[in-house]
């Protein structure tokens, strides 16, 4: 009987042995490059940004697949967490990823509110984080963090270049702005106005409409009555689709020139649904499926998902490229954070968004900004065609 029952002493001994065993095997594995590097993607798989979230995941998965599942000689595992577009949910998920899953690198983040909410947590934990979409200017300025890299645009980079192009090529006065009344809309339109006025341009009315506006017809009628030289507009996702379609429904598409940050005419998120209603639109964006830098990725993505990439998928792919460059510089030894950061800050990374340098003041990407015009592509469908490139646009950074 005694031979089968486990005594307390035996149990203790076994526990101690297994603990010792674990402690011993771990460093051995790491030296052999066997423990995978854990990368966590924080994105929205439900909630208002669900469509962007799916594209982001596809973009990053594509890059990992293309790298043969390895970066710097080590295997990479990807963990995807859904933030539902809510800051509180994201905070909970990030805490879990850091304490429970012990991830090495965090990336993703669509909403600016989410990015600002997790900023202090990742900074305190000294966890390297790469923000792929959230554009809030603050993250490149007062809320910049030494552990957060931003391989994407800031609102200013798009609003500023939009104003330069509008002033040079479209009209020096007689335009008005129309924005979605929340943080991102206020930033894009605000930065557009500042630069446009600095150039010497004169702007008419500023119109704001709540996020989630169901019927734009009353506003579209006002636009028809005012017949402005141009409208600088910003709406995200479904609002953008509705706005563009209702402008077309009222036969004003040819009469009113619509300019905006790229999200208004996003190749993946807006144009497939808006269809011909997007034709003729001009936008400034750090992404274009027609840019030479993204040609390779666009072809690959089209093969896998049977559609052209927009910002979300391209940004996630480019984020992966940046992470890969960093990991390769330390040959997979992710503990050397300073060396990894130094690599990213010292030399440009070539990404699907274009050549990417990082500003050493705030770890913000310095990017080429494309001026896209929506024209017919080779298949006859609306396509963001690059008509001009503003090279190396740098956010004013902490001093602004």
């Amino acid at each position: 009987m005694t031979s089968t029952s486990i005594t307390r002493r035996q149990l203790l001994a076994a526990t101690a042995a297994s603990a010792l065993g674990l402690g011993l095997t771990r460093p051995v594995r790491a030296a052999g490059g066997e423990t995978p590097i854990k990368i966590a993607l924080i994105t929205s798989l439900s909630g208002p940004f669900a469509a962007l979230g799916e594209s982001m995941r596809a973009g990053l998965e594509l890059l990992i697949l293309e790298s043969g599942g390895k970066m710097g000689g080590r295997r990479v595992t990807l963990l995807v967490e859904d933030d539902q577009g809510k800051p509180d949910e994201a905070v909970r998920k990030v805490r879990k990823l850091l304490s429970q899953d012990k991830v090495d690198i965090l990336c993703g983040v669509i909403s600016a509110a989410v990015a600002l909410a997790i900023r202090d947590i990742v900074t305190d934990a000294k966890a390297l984080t790469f923000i792929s979409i959230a554009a809030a200017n603050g993250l490149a300025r007062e809320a910049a963090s030494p552990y957060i890299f931003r391989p994407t645009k800031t609102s200013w980079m798009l609003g500023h270049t939009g104003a330069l192009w509008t002033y040079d090529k479209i009209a020096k006065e007689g335009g008005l702005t129309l924005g979605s009344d929340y943080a991102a809309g206020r930033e894009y339109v605000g930065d557009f106005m500042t630069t446009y006025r600095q150039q010497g341009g004169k702007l008419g009315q500023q119109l704001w409409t709540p996020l989630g506006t169901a019927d734009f017809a009353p506003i579209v009628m006002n636009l028809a009555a005012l017949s402005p030289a141009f409208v600088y507009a910003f709406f995200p996702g479904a609002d953008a689709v509705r706005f563009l379609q209702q402008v077309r429904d009222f036969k004003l598409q040819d009469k009113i020139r619509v300019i905006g940050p790229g999200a208004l005419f996003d190749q993946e998120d807006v144009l497939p649904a808006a269809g011909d209603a997007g034709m003729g639109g001009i936008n400034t964006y750090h992404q274009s499926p027609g840019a030479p830098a993204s040609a390779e990725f666009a072809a690959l993505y089209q093969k896998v998902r049977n559609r052209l990439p927009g910002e979300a998928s391209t940004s996630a792919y480019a984020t992966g490229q940046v992470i890969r460059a960093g990991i390769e510089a330390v040959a997979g030894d992710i503990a050397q954070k300073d060396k990894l950061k130094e690599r990213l800050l010292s030399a440009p990374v070539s990404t699907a968004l274009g050549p990417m340098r990082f500003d050493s003041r705030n770890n913000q990407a310095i990017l080429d900004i494309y001026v896209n015009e929506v024209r017919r592509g080779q298949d006859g469908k609306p396509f963001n065609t690059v008509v001009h490139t503003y090279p190396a646009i740098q956010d004013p950074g902490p001093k602004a």
Partner: protein
Amino acid sequence: MSYYLVQTLNALSFSVLLMLTGLGLSLVLSLMNFVNLTHGSFFLLGGYVAIHWIGAGAPWWLAFPAAFVIAGTVGLVLDRFPFGRFYPRTHLMQVLLTYGLSVIFADLMRWGFGADTMSLPTPELLRGVVFVAGLPFPIYRLFIIASGGALAFGLWYAIDCTLWGAAIRACVIDRGIVETLGLNTRRIFTVGLVIAAGLGGLGGALGAGMLSAYPGLDEEVLLLALLVVVVGGLGSFGGTVLSALLLGFVTTFSRAWLPEFANFLSLGIMAAVLVIWPSGLVVRKMRQV
């Protein structure tokens, strides 16, 4: 002058859309005394059905009956289980059940139809504009106004002027007495729910041309529908129609004049209406169950 005329037409088309979302909900909520928070899901389902129907190249005018039939069928299944067991329960239990289901449906639809925004490939015939005193107005919106008006009239006639409608109304007031008259009240409620679900789907199909379809639309629509029904007053079709018109006109004109405060103004006015007439615009005497 023509500007105001077109804005009035805009308000009218938005009102009809609100009315379409409100009618089905009003039928179950006020006549059957059942809080159905899955109504927004029926609306979104109808939208997706119409988009895929027309996208597949089937005759466009059949898309709307198809949306009605498919949403109605889902309603029928839900009525068998689990709604049927909850008709006699308290409102709180009904809210718990139907809200939970609406979350499940939202996930199912995101899984089945994808998370992308989709828009109705409007048929050629409805794509043009008519000129109203020199200003363009889309034909599709006229189509929405006409079909919504016809539907509301038909439903009002069915509920208020036919024996079937009388039976449904009687069921709400006293189910026991109706049973003693030899009518199967369970079956009457089933018919009511199927029609309501079908109307939700039909509203979604018509609305897809204006609102497009995307995950999250179900909740937005449900909120508007609840607002329309509650402000209109429980238990009356006239009230629903009246409050849809009020909300549509207030929203449209506040968007035209003060777009920044559009939500504040329209919701503020609706709240004021409820403060002045707590039981809604049109009140019908009925026994609280």
